[in-house]
């Protein structure tokens, strides 16, 4: 019986940290995301002891 050879899986390319930093900095400059949506209730609730 013929053995089917499997090619090793190609690892997913990972974005270098510089790319993440650039993405993060650009996002943080956008003032739109600093505004709280009117529908959001972001107040925490009372937890159980």
């Amino acid at each position, binding site marked *: 019986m013929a053995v089917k050879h499997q090619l090793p899986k190609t690892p997913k390319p*990972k974005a270098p940290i510089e790319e*993440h*930093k650039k993405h993060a900095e650009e996002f*943080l400059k956008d003032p739109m995301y600093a505004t*709280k949506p009117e529908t959001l*209730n972001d107040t925490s*609730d*009372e937890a*159980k*002891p």
Partner: protein
Amino acid sequence: MTYRPPFIKQGDGSRCQWQNCGCAAHAMAAMRSRLGRNPNNEHGWPPTPSEIRNRIGGGCDGTNLQENAAAVAHLYGVIMLVRYGVPWNTFRSLIISGRGAVVQIRYSVIAPTRFDASPGFTGNHAVYVNERRSSDGAYYVYDPLADHRRSSIPQGPQWWPATLLQRAAYAMPGTSTGCVNASFTRDTE
């Protein structure tokens, strides 16, 4: 290696302790932001949930991101960047690139898992996220409730699967679909 702040629990016996998740999470974020260094001002160090709570003032209602960010800026000189409707991929980039974050979550998503640190609680909550592990994408999460006050309750920071953190953050009422609300530390890396 990414700096890891000490775990700070909310159940410390202080006033409003069970409503102090946001304060405790921001106390840990302040430690991360300052890499544990004392600002040597007139306020206490290390940060405590009660000092942050007292700065916010008022009764024992729950707190939100803006209130806590303003308190840690005043007390410790720590600037937190509060952002709403953050797409998940962007949140991931912010963490990978060297920031910690206080993330708002709905505890009903955590309740059925082994990470549940407050049996019976299903409401709005805040956790501090310090870093992401590249091998499996898990996040190192400091749940201020995880103080091992009973044997069944986790102790200190835990590696949460990314999907769990994501689902819990998405479930905050009023949050844009597929987004999270969070308060980010400076880039310390």
